[in-house]
């Protein structure tokens, strides 16, 4: 509910800004809309853009349920992508049905390990996971930069990028000529899986209890540190998977600036999703559609595609505002009559 309100308010605020700068907001926003879901091809593009946001958004959400902020989805995604490329070289001879799961598992392992360090630091040394995960993002980006300039540089040696991953690891395209790949339906399955784990398993209950009241959870006999470790490792694995899916489904290789900040946008996606996996699904689809539509908006309305980032940021600002207690009380008063017929 606050999310929908935040989205509406953000669109209004951005429209006002456009109007101030002598642009017709209706033309700009309708171009954005048409660019995102105007026809079947554009619709699939939106889905393709939404997929990495969904994986990483779920990663952030999962950690959030245990009361920890994984700001490091970006770094975990990059590590996952690197692992996918690294392992991809060795599985070229295998059939896709083996090669793809192998590559994905390697990426999940890499992402999970990258999150293991902050998990260790938090549970054993009391280091805030917010700081350690952020800092590891920069280390991951530098590591990736080193790899594409050094050991993993393409064999022709021309650009700072890796060789393309072998065909055996390419995710099947579902509706050629569109770029819709297997990773998209898989991400929906992932949403269902995360939702199931959180709300239908004992492990998920322990994890959520840890996030809801760590002291009460500990007194209830839940080993809180173990739950935090698990949540961060799983979260890292999901973000790592996002890297592998992006490599094998879309870019087919890794280069610098491989991720336009999916792991950071994921935090906004998780916030808009309000901790619910299905909410994250809709948020990721919406943010993916914004990304996909931005090009059309730039061409048709002459508005820089950077506006999309502004819209995303404005949504988060409004969301923060609507989450304050005062506004919450106001909102609950507004739809009180529904409870009292």
């Amino acid at each position: 509910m606050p999310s929908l309100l935040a989205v509406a308010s953000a669109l209004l605020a951005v429209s006002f800004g456009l109007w101030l700068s002598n642009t017709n907001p209706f033309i700009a926003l309708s171009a954005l809309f048409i660019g995102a879901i105007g026809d079947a091809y554009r619709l699939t593009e939106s889905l393709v853009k939404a997929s990495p946001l969904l994986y990483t958004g779920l990663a952030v959400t999962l950690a959030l349920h245990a009361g920890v902020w994984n700001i490091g989805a970006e770094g975990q995604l990059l590590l996952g992508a690197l692992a996918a490329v690294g392992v991809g070289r060795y599985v070229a001879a295998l059939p896709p049905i083996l090669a793809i799961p192998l590559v994905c598992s390697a990426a999940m392992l890499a992402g999970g390990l990258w999150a293991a360090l902050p998990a260790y630091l938090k549970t054993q040394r009391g280091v805030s996971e917010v700081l350690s995960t952020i800092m590891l993002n920069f280390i991951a980006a530098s590591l990736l930069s080193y790899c594409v300039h050094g050991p993993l540089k393409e064999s022709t040696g021309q650009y700072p990028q890796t060789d393309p991953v072998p065909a055996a690891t390419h995710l099947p395209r579902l509706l050629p000529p569109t770029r819709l790949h297997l990773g998209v339906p898989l991400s929906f399955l992932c949403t269902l899986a995360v939702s199931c784990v959180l709300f239908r398993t004992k492990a998920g209950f322990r994890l959520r209890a840890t996030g809801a009241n760590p002291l009460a959870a500990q007194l209830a006999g839940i080993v809180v540190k173990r739950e935090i470790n698990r949540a961060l490792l799983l979260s890292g694995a999901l973000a790592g998977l996002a890297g592998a899916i992006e490599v094998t489904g879309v870019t087919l290789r890794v280069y610098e600036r491989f991720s336009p900040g999916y792991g950071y946008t994921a935090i906004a996606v998780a916030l808009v999703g309000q901790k619910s996996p299905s909410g994250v699904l809709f948020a990721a689809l919406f943010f993916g559609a914004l990304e996909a539509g931005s090009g059309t908006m730039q061409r048709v309305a002459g508005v820089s595609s950077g506006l999309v980032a502004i819209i995303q940021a404005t949504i988060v600002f409004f969301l923060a505002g609507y989450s304050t207690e005062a506004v919450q009380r106001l909102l609950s008063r507004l739809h009180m009559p529904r409870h009292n017929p």
Partner: protein
Amino acid sequence: MQQVSLRDITKSFPHTRAVDQVSITFRAGEIHAILGENGAGKSTLMHILSGLYRPDAGAIFIDNQPQTFSSPRAALAAGIAMVHQHFMLVPSLSVAENVFLALPRRSPLLVRRHLLSQHIRQLANRYRIPIDSPDVPVSTLSIGAQQRVEILKALASEARCLILDEPTAVLTPAEVEDLFRTLQGLKQEGYLIILITHKIPEVLACSDQLSVLRHGRLVTTLPTATCTAEQLARCMIGDAPLPPLRRSLPQLPPQESSPSPPLLTFENVWSHPLHNRVTLHDISFTLQAGEVMGIAGVDGNGQTELTELLIGLQTPARGTVRLAGQPLVTYTPAVLRTAGVCLIPQDRQREGLALSFTVAENLLLNVSCLAVVAPGFWLAPRAVQRFAARQITRFGITPPSPTQPVSTLSGGNQQRVVIARELAYNARVIIAVHPSRGLDISASRYVHDELLACCSRGAGIILISTDLDEVLTLSHRIYILYQGRLLGPIEPTASREHIGRMMTGTWMTY
């Protein structure tokens, strides 16, 4: 302010009508008690008067002027302050800083600390409210002292009407007397004191007027002098029969004939010395199956520390703890819980409940319950609902909806959720800290009966309470906690004077 009246106040929540057409008139210079069982609507009514809720219908009049309060701040500006059951203090700030937050005319930028401290000392002296120092953090104070800070806050905000929500729930007998003396003093200064309570003796001892609520409706408003305890109990509970007053403890199994080792043994256990904490000295006791061991004492003499040691949140610095004869090697809540240790914690909201969870989820917040309801990997919603429905019926939790967020329940019903969970399965050693805090007569008797039923099934109970009556009526043996030492055991038939001397540390001259 001469008179505050409520006229036809009605307030509904999604599942209940909490307050139904209640009209009461309060006059300055009186102590007016609002009496009723858990969920009778006392707190809701007072939350309306203090601006936290807005009534669906009805109006508030101060000196015959109609008032609408959009927030507690607005009510405060009109002179109405509330001391909540769960104190609204910032634990890390000092007494002075907490009072500062309540001042109506404060300079927006500067805090003049010495003036503030001086002001607070003056206030405290004027109304004879004992405080040690205005400059210590509130978190280091005992519950009784925190309550005095709340009252100081209300006085500093220049309120003329003080509403106290279950103020005596966690006070020692001596602290209760101090509180009543303070309230009498305030009354003579012309303050209006409204006391929410379910303890009939306290109402008779200190109020001038009383109003009884039942199921959200006003039963009657009377001058206290004309009432008797039986009459009030009937008003509160209605026509339902009264539970028996005296209880018979289950027979203890004869010591030497019991072949099994004692449930729990502490052998010369010391706690780690920590900053701002009481260090436990050389604690030794043995808890037999079927026994209630009462631990009385003035709050702040090591109750918190002992509880943390008993549930495994702290590890002992020295000494041996044996569970069923086996010395414990790893010492964590998880290990102790699995071995059948249960905890009814002192502060249910902080230690016992996840407030964002539903009632059903909170009923599972205990690894023993979780293991029974969900033996495998999955947490089947149907099994959870079935378990929740059963416990809700058995323990009379209202509203009886498993999917209700536990934060919307009244304090007493939140306590029932905790107890319903802790006594559900595998309760072998039950650590009960203030188990009837905030519960009304019938509910607390029910809790006591449930505890004793567990006891006669072979569980051992460690009852830690500052309510001496509770300890005296329930325990087979009584220990006194004084400055981190366990004194006793003494028989529950010992005189109150003797126990009182032990609680205050003057037993040595006895």
